[in-house]
């Protein structure tokens, strides 16, 4: 592995980029499905029934983790840009990962 990639800040950057891209693709679909709730409640509820499928539930949990990771990773970016550098900011990367996984787990436990 190239030296510059073996660094927690590189991984934080990569997670932020990939999560952002996945969420950007998901958003138009999310809005269209929400529109179904007004347009055709039966079809919407049929769609929600499909999401009860364990694999879909797992995918949803993945999305929640990506959302939380993008949120906490974004806080990290803002801290880097707007606050003076402190060494604890490196530790924050691990904390953002932990918080994201925890939020995903809370979702999964409540959804199943």
């Amino acid at each position: 592995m190239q030296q510059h990639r073996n660094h927690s800040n590189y991984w934080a950057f990569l997670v932020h980029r990939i999560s952002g891209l996945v969420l950007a693709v998901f958003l138009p679909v999310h809005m269209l499905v929400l529109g179904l709730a007004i347009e055709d409640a039966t079809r919407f509820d049929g769609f929600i029934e499909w999401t009860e499928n364990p694999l879909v539930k797992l995918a949803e949990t993945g999305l929640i983790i990506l959302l939380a990771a993008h949120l906490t990773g974004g806080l990290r970016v803002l801290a880097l840009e707007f606050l003076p550098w402190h060494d604890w900011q490196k530790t924050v990367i691990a904390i953002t990962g932990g918080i994201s996984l925890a939020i995903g787990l809370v979702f999964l436990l409540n959804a199943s």
Partner: protein
Amino acid sequence: MSPKQESLIWIAQRGSAMVLIIGLIVHLGAIIAAVQGGISAAEISGRMNGHTGWFVFYLCFLVAVSIHAPIGLRSILIEVTSLPNRSVGLISLLLAVMILAPGLRAIFGLYGVEW
């Protein structure tokens, strides 16, 4: 893009991010609360219909994400593709419309405004 325009885009990206931080914390909380009883069209309508607080919240949230996601996509396209600036701009604008238009329709519809 002139340096001034690039600065404005940077400010829009960071400004929308700050709105989204608050929005996402509320949104994640609402998701976890909503899935406990199971989601349905009736449940979402019941939560949104006529509730001006939620309506204003989701409107701000939607506008912020419609600014934030396309600018993020733009940065990625500029960095990893060699597409001309014009195409990058058009793709980003398309994403903004694809989020904003159905999003507005859903929010207004769920609040109870007839189109």
